């Protein structure tokens, strides 16, 4: 075979266009994502001394946040609050999203698109607007909440939920659920639509009721999507800030009962009222948030996703 007729890829010639096409994304991603991330991690190893100069202090900032009695109480309070915030989303938002998607995919349903649009609508609203509206609705002084409950004779159940330490965080989490439930619904609905109708027919002929079809056939087949929705929920919950800030301010009251990682970071970095801001301690909180999210995502990638098989439909 002296003369191979098969065309060979000449990598020296191919290199230029390959890099030319990769460059824009690489440059933009590096400048706006990788560099700030690395720089803020770098910043967490310094402390500012008088005159604004930075001194390298190693892991001192981490020792302060996790070891100092005052700081660590605040940090762990925010961490556990954030876990509760996430738990409410996992226990309420995602099951409701799955249920809504299951109902939407029922063939007998009328006005399917109307429901879909209405449920998805709040996700398009600004978080600040949603927070403000709910604050008004739930206000014990002029809110419509008590009146609406009165229609059903349930006025006695009403309480100043946003103002009580025990219920404020749950209430805020439920407001967030109300706003975002359309996202898991849409993703799972799309996954349900991809299940061939023959499969459902076969299960019906095998004697399955609608619920059994869902439990034994549809649910196992959308599990990978549910896992993906869960990790998206985790990431967005641990990055959450705006709703708490718009309803409760950076102090995340009452008595820090609604303080989560985002609000803690904000107070630490910028300062608030009597607290002085510290960019280096703020960068430390941000780095800790990054580590928490990284651990969660790695757990998803290496434990959850490997056990879930996607089935060829």
């Amino acid at each position, binding site marked *: 075979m002296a003369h191979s007729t098969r065309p060979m890829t000449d990598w020296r010639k191919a290199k230029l266009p390959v890099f030319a096409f990769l460059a824009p994304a690489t440059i933009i991603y590096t400048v706006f994502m990788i560099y700030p991330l690395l720089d803020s991690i770098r910043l967490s190893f310094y402390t500012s001394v008088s005159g604004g100069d930075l001194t390298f202090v190693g892991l001192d900032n981490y020792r302060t946040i996790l070891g100092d009695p005052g700081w660590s109480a605040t940090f762990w309070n925010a961490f556990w609050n954030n876990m509760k915030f996430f738990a409410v989303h996992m226990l309420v938002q995602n099951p409701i999203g799955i249920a809504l998607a299951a109902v939407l995919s029922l063939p007998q349903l009328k006005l399917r698109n109307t429901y879909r649009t209405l449920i998805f609508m709040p996700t398009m609203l600004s978080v600040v607007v949603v927070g403000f509206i709910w604050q008004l609705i739930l206000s014990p002084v002029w809110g419509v909440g008590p009146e609406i409950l009165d229609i059903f004779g349930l006025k006695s159940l009403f309480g100043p939920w946003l103002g009580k330490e025990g219920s404020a965080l749950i209430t805020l989490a439920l407001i967030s659920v109300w706003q975002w439930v359309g996202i898991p619904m849409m993703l799972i609905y799309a996954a349900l639509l991809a299940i*061939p109708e*023959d*499969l459902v*027919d*076969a*299960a*019906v*002929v*095998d*004697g*399955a009721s609608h619920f*059994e079809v869902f439990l*034994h*056939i549809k649910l*196992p*087949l959308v599990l990978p999507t549910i896992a993906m929705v869960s990790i998206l929920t985790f990431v967005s919950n641990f990055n959450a800030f705006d709703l708490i800030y718009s309803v409760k301010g950076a102090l995340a009251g009452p008595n820090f009962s609604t303080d989560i990682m985002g609000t803690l970071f904000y107070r630490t970095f910028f300062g608030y009222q009597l607290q002085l801001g510290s960019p280096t301690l703020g960068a430390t909180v941000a780095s800790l948030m990054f580590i928490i999210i990284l651990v969660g995502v790695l757990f998803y990638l290496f434990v959850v996703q490997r056990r879930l*098989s996607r*089935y*060829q*439909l």
Partner: protein
Amino acid sequence: MADLKLDQIRKSYGAVDVLHGVDLDVKDGEFVVFVGPSGCGKSTLLRIIAGLEDITGGDLMIDGDIVNTKSPRDRGIAMVFQSYALYPHMSVYKNMAFGLKLAKTNKAELDERVRNAAKILQLDALLDRRPAELSGGQRQRVAIGRAIVRQPKVFLFDEPLSNLDAALRVQTRIEIAKLHQKLKSTIIYVTHDQIEAMTLADKIVVLNAGNVEQVGSPMELYHHPKTRFVAGFIGSPAMNFTRVTITAVEPGRVTVQTPGGKSAVLPFEVTTDHIGTEVELGIRPEHMGLDRAGELGVDGEVEVVEKLGDSVYLYVRLANGDRVTLRAPGHCRIKIGEAVSARADAAAAHLFDRNGQAFAKLDCPEEYSAME
């Protein structure tokens, strides 16, 4: 196992009528094939029997009970789908056990029934595999196994062989025939492939545009099609048709004039009011030959030659522009462009009136009327 009765079954989707009153009796243990072109309503009819579609009008009876509003699970049916519809997240064993598990069958019986079905279908070694790890033919067998374990009164097959390659299709067809002999169950089978219909069925139901054209044994349909549609649909290559004019009628005899101007006497019972009307004459390609004797003849030029080994199909263009297909023996050396002259027995002819209804044929020799 059970008998099945369809009484004036109608189906409409909104204003569109898909089935216009289908009557059918299926006896216990019978293998019935629904055949017809796409869109004729055969799959809809099967899904109605399965309970996957509502009935717009009429009654469906299984074993004497009206099951119109019963859910599929209460009808005692099992169905095999064209796409196999195996549950992708379940092993072969679980796929077959699913129906029994839902019916809360006890474990020992469930296991015995699944293993028994697996043995019949030679799936023993594959029970732990997922559908994705199986070949097309194996998936097909699992789908059939899933139906068998439920021991249904009626098996429903919806074009089960369409997704298999040609060789496997023939093999699976034989397996299904053997399975029917073994299980002696009532089977309703939908296909658009008339060879599947001819080879498998005890009884064929030819459907066209939501109507039953004819019900009968394969040979009955082949030799005595009641309508022009059935005549054209059953048999491959399709029957040749040409328009002829009736010139004279005697009891049991009809004289027609062919487009070529020749006259021929055919053994049909035709009433005198048909004299002078145009009717359609049909002859199957295999009943026409170059070296045959016969009252009917055509002359033309060969346009296409298809060599199949054992036989050769000649596509001939007649002087009046009509095209005729005929079968010649495999050693035939005729080439494209040659002039040929073919003949056929008058007894091989079929005659259809303007509405496509067949005229009754009389004193038919064995060759053109063999029945089981």
